[in-house]
């Protein structure tokens, strides 16, 4: 299967997900369970994608772990997304120079 087919499929699915409710639906979802589920989905997805993958994201467990700790601490103190992301990377990079 060519990569182009994969790209087309992922783009089409992503577009339809956004387009259908934006274009056709006007009413609010009534089910409290569904609304709660949809509210929690982003956090569950991001958490499952990040843990444990982040610990091997730089190809080295030690530099990844240092970057992760820095990200967790900065995120805990509500720093902007971009600051947390770049600081984690910088910490990993500097750790890599030391070991």
């Amino acid at each position, binding site marked *: 299967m060519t990569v182009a087919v994969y790209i087309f499929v992922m783009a089409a699915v992503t577009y339809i997900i956004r387009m259908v409710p*934006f274009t056709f639906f006007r009413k609010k979802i009534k089910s409290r369970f569904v609304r709660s589920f949809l509210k929690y989905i982003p956090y569950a997805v991001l958490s499952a994608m990040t843990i444990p993958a982040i610990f091997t994201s730089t190809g080295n467990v030690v530099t990844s772990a240092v970057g992760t700790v820095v990200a967790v601490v900065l995120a805990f103190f509500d720093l902007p997304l971009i600051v*947390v992301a770049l600081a984690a990377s910088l910490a*990993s*990079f500097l750790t890599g120079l030391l070991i």
Partner: protein
Amino acid sequence: MKSNFLRGMRDGIPIALGYLSVSFGFGILAVQSGLSVFQASAISASNLTSAGQIAGVGVIAAGGTLLEMILVQLVINIRYSLMALSLSQKLDKRFTTPHRLLASYGITDEIFAVCSAQKGVIVPAYMYGMILIAMIGWVLGTFLGASAGEILPEAVSSAMGIVLYGMFLAIIIPPSRRKKSVLFVTLIAALLSIVFKYVLTMISGGFAVIICAIAAAGLGALLFPVTDEEEEAGE
């Protein structure tokens, strides 16, 4: 009309700057997963989403099935449906069906957040301005990351591999600190994800994310159903 477009672009500048650096990481990741610079840029231009693209590249790299790709995108990006639903109630009369079809493309977490925070209705030109500049940042960053990933020293490009995960932590940690329900959901999802990674290794990565997310969010919805006040606060 024109001023609305420019206003949208201006409000989109911080989004574009953030996207530029984050998508740089995506570009590196995509090339490391075996994609070309053009393929990586094409994914960013046609998808305009972070988590879905990373998971999608994972499916491509692993040679997964198209069904897996569809389900992965569906589960990871389903949150956009809720955002689209919410935004659709805030649109100006000028948002005819063709405008809605076009602007749907640009509903991302950040664009949704900025548009939702606007007072009053949203006109098409405003949203187009914001989407355009955000998209430029996202695609340009991907292109630069994918290109430079091959030129940059190994130490730099490998350290960039953590950028997107760092951003994800920055999204999930602050609400987890404030709300027990969100903390519960993120911890369950992380725990399940570890189990899939090291114990249930026969399940592929894409499906593992789906199962973890549905189980954790479903359990969260059962134990901590949202209240109307929470939803109005946008938390």
